[in-house]
């Protein structure tokens, strides 16, 4: 199952160009949703106003080389490993879900555009990446949603309480889960269940990408931007108005003892 491209069998019923148009439509929905959200929520305006304020409060000007170094370090350390979440389960779950989603989406695009149409070569590696990505998304996502969500962990709400902020993670999990189920039932030769999960897979994709304006989807764009701005502000001395680092040695005393926020 893992090495079979589920889109190939689909291309026998629907033309491969229709599948490609669907993928392009989803990409279009991301762009439209993000732009509308930027206009309505004014988060980009806030971001640039903040950057302007930081520039005025800067104690020194950063050179292009220094800026590039900070941006590169932020990408490698803060963004690629979600350092913001500190050490712990949340970070592991997020990293797993993040890389799983990236693999799942990249493999979907590669499979649909290069290995689905009739006459195109058969790939073993990309279907495996697609399946592994979906499994990683499910493991990281369900772990987060059932146990690590702040509503459950710190607020003591039950795991089944669904709020608007769950739209993104639930739609993403639905995509990965129904995608895997669709692939499995297609492989097992159960056409009814295969079609059922195909319909659910398509629906969850439309909800995920069509709901960008309402969901937390765009945090994938804003969070890296905010991390870069934060590190640049630390380097140029504006520090988002924060006090300077304390002139004290690291002694790892009592202050380091931070427990999980679940003392309700």
């Amino acid at each position, binding site marked *: 199952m893992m090495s079979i491209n589920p889109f190939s069998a689909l291309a026998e019923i629907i033309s491969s160009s229709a599948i490609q148009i669907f993928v392009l439509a989803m990409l279009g929905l991301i762009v439209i949703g993000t732009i509308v959200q930027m206009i309505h929520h004014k988060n980009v305006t806030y971001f640039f106003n903040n950057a302007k304020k930081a520039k005025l409060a800067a104690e020194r000007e950063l050179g292009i080389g220094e800026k590039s170094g900070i941006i590169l370090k932020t990408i490698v350390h803060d963004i690629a490993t979600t350092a913001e979440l500190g050490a712990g389960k949340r970070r592991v779950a997020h990293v797993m879900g993040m890389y799983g989603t990236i693999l799942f989406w990249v493999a979907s695009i590669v499979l649909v555009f290069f290995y689905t149409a009739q006459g195109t070569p058969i790939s073993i590696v990309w279907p495996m990446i697609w399946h592994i990505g979906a499994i990683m998304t499910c493991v990281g996502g369900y772990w987060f949603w059932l146990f690590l969500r702040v509503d459950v962990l710190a607020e003591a709400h039950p795991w089944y309480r669904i709020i608007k*902020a769950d739209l993104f993670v639930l739609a993403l999990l639905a995509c990965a889960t129904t995608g895997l189920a669709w692939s499995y039932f297609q492989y097992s030769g159960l056409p009814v269940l295969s079609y059922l999960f195909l319909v659910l897979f398509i629906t969850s994709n439309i909800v995920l990408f069509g709901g960008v304006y309402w969901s937390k989807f765009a945090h994938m764009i*804003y969070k890296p931007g905010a991390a870069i701005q934060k590190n640049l502000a630390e380097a140029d001395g504006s520090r988002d108005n*924060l006090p300077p680092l*304390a002139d004290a040695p690291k002694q790892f005393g009592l*202050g380091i003892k931070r427990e999980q926020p679940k003392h309700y």
Partner: protein
Amino acid sequence: MSTFVYMTRCDGCGHCVDICPSDIMHIDENIRRAVNIEPNFCWECYSCVKACPNHAIDVRGYADFAPMGHSVRVRREEEKGTISWKIKFRNGTEKNFVSPITTKPWGKFIPKLAEGEKPNEGEINSQRLYTEPQGLNIDGELPSVPKDSFKKGVYY
């Protein structure tokens, strides 16, 4: 001066929700970030400001006595055991202070509520607060006013 959260810095970890003694720090249902739901009920203890690992919580004075332009920012450096404060006045004056972290571990002075027994209906409706009277180091009963002795009419 009550607290508020910078949404761009908050990552929704829940430490402020956990520590707030007034139970007014909660998670926003739309964006899953922390929010002070009732600034009027803020005790100004700054526990959340100091607990935030992302320095996402700030302090804002009420507009009548501290008009916009000032700021109070806190940086907690756990590995150094320090809390730094930066007070910025409206006229541009800045003051910086560094203090040691004096937070005590959970369970020592701050009760571990998750491990405690759930209060029964009688305790919930009682006029006593949590751990009273033992928590006040008082032997014997606390004075109470029976509800039927309340003055009839509108209370404000």
